[in-house]
């Protein structure tokens, strides 16, 4: 296990390094000069040169990367070229928003998806399955930005049940925080739950047809025990995989939802940074996203081995 963790950590660092390097070089290949963007009206060569010198843009890409990497290791991600705010501070305010949104949405999606998927599999060919399948189809095919707009229109603007946009940090006012996040969580979560529902349903159908489920029935277990203890647990591998992938995607890309509901989250920060050629922020975004993916993947692998004893991380057979 220790050897496995060591290998894993080493691989993670390499992945982080490569991801950062590729993006670092990649954004510099994009058209558009940050110095020009920063200079505003005053585009005299002297002003541009001063800006380039200030941000180190006059040095070679490799020197720039080396400096960035060294600073990043020490916890300094630089300052935004746009606002002059420290990037770590920006992450400090944006990440909690996105993490709260992502975790609540994925929780809702998992509960809904696994529940509906199980019902659909167990009640195969009956109205409950048609209902679950129909809802899932709607969830998959209706774009959630549209659903978000409709929700804002009817639940916020005309009835005033929920705030249409904005965010209140949880520690400042928990009730207001939840009040603001309910709509985005529901919109995002129900959309994701459709995918989880479809996957749960098909892997539950497989599990319900297995010999060990027949054994469980032949033992005289109640349907609840047969389904919950025997069939569902064996279906969870698929669910965990999907949830892991979705969570990773959510951390980096709840962009549309954040934009619609005016949440000052990570996705919004990313979009703004890209449009404004804010190099330090983009680099930090990539670093955080890659770290999130690596962390989530690691968690998913650990969960696999908890669910299924045949899978042992590190290949060490128990």
């Amino acid at each position, binding site marked *: 296990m220790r050897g496995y963790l060591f290998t894993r950590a080493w691989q993670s660092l390499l992945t982080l390094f490569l991801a950062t390097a590729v993006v670092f070089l990649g954004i510099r290949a994009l058209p558009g000069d940050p110095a020009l963007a920063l200079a505003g009206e005053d585009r005299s060569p002297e002003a541009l040169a001063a800006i380039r010198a200030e941000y180190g843009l006059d040095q070679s890409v490799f020197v720039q990367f080396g400096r960035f990497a060294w600073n990043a290791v020490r916890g300094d991600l630089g300052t935004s070229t746009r606002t002059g705010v420290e990037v770590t501070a920006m992450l400090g305010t944006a990440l909690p928003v996105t993490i709260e949104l992502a975790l609540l949405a994925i929780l809702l999606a998992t509960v809904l998806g696994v529940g509906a998927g199980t019902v659909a599999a167990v009640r195969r060919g009956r109205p409950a399955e048609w209902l679950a399948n129909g809802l899932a189809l709607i969830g998959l095919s209706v774009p959630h930005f549209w659903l978000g707009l409709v929700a804002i229109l009817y639940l916020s603007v005309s009835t005033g049940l929920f705030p249409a946009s904005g965010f209140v940090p949880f520690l400042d006012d928990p009730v207001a925080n939840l009040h603001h996040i309910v709509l985005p969580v529901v919109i995002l979560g129900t959309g994701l739950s459709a995918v989880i529902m479809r996957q749960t349903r098909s892997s539950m159908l497989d599990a319900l047809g*297995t010999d*060990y489920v027949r054994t469980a029935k032949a033992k*005289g277990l*109640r349907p609840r025990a047969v389904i919950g203890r025997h069939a569902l*647990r*064996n279906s969870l591998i698929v669910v965990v995989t999907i949830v892991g992938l979705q969570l990773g995607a959510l951390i980096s890309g709840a962009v549309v939802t954040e934009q619609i509901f005016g949440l000052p989250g990570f996705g919004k920060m990313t979009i703004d940074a890209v449009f404004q050629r804010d190099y330090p922020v983009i680099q930090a975004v990539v670093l955080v996203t890659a770290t999130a993916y690596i962390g989530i993947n690691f968690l998913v692998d650990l969960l696999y081995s908890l669910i*299924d004893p045949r899978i042992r991380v590190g290949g060490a057979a128990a």
Partner: protein
Amino acid sequence: MSVLTVRDLSVVFRTETGPLSVVDKVDLSLDAGEIVGVVGESGCGKSVTAMSLTGLLPSSANVTGSAVLDGTELIGAPESVLRRVRGREVAYIFQEPMSSLNPVLTVGRQIGEVLRVHEGLKRRDARARAVELLALVGIPSPAHRVDNYPHQLSGGMRQRVMIAMAVACGPKVLVADEPTTALDVTVQAGILDVLRDLRERLGTSVLVITHDLGVIADIADRVLVMYAGRIVERAGVHDLFAAPRHHYTAGLLAASPVPGEHAGTHRLREIPGLVPVLVTQPDACTFAERCAAAEDDCRVQEPRLDPPGGSGHGAACWHPVRQRRGAAS
């Protein structure tokens, strides 16, 4: 004293292409401590018969007839009654011990589950009983094995776990559905020993379902031969091997290799044709199309087991094999 009495048991499956008759008017009885073998080819309805007893068939199966276990009618009984019967009064061992055990639960937990649901044992007590049961079925160092997962055990050990699970609540009837088919020959003998031993010690009646005549010869007291959903011959094990009366039974025996001077030098005789898939059961002998001794009457009237009922040697055949074949069992 009969523990289980089955009369006129029929099973029809509703399928997308119409009804399918799988079991037809099966009669069987099982005495206390008796081992009865049910033999036949794949698809002859022997497993379906066994599953139908405790309502384990999918809802597309329509089961009619009667199966009385110690005074309780099982066919058509409510699910709550059947759930109490399953695992406690009638327990099953299935063919493939790897896939029949849940891969994500320890064997101790899977054995303990039966005790917890039927005898209300607490988790710790159930575990302690599971260790005893593993010892009973001959698993070495049971206190260690109880925490193993199925993939950590060999095929033979897994089947022993299945047996331990099946006998946990001391069932009256143990249904062993192809218990040795997936196992090595040497391991097979061990499993059959365990079954025999359990019969001696616990007085359990065993219904052994198999296509393997060797298993039947080894373990059964009486034999039922099934063909296309019907029981075509019923006999004591020695009578069946010494003097089969139904031509299907005779064909099965002729298709089995016999050790001796001809071994390896002459071809085994196969039964020509295939087992029919029946939409409805005809009023005729279903084996007639493949039978060398079939005459016109075989195709117009269904032969019933003669003598009917009881446990004497009987065959459902209008022109039974004459008693001259002396094949050794």
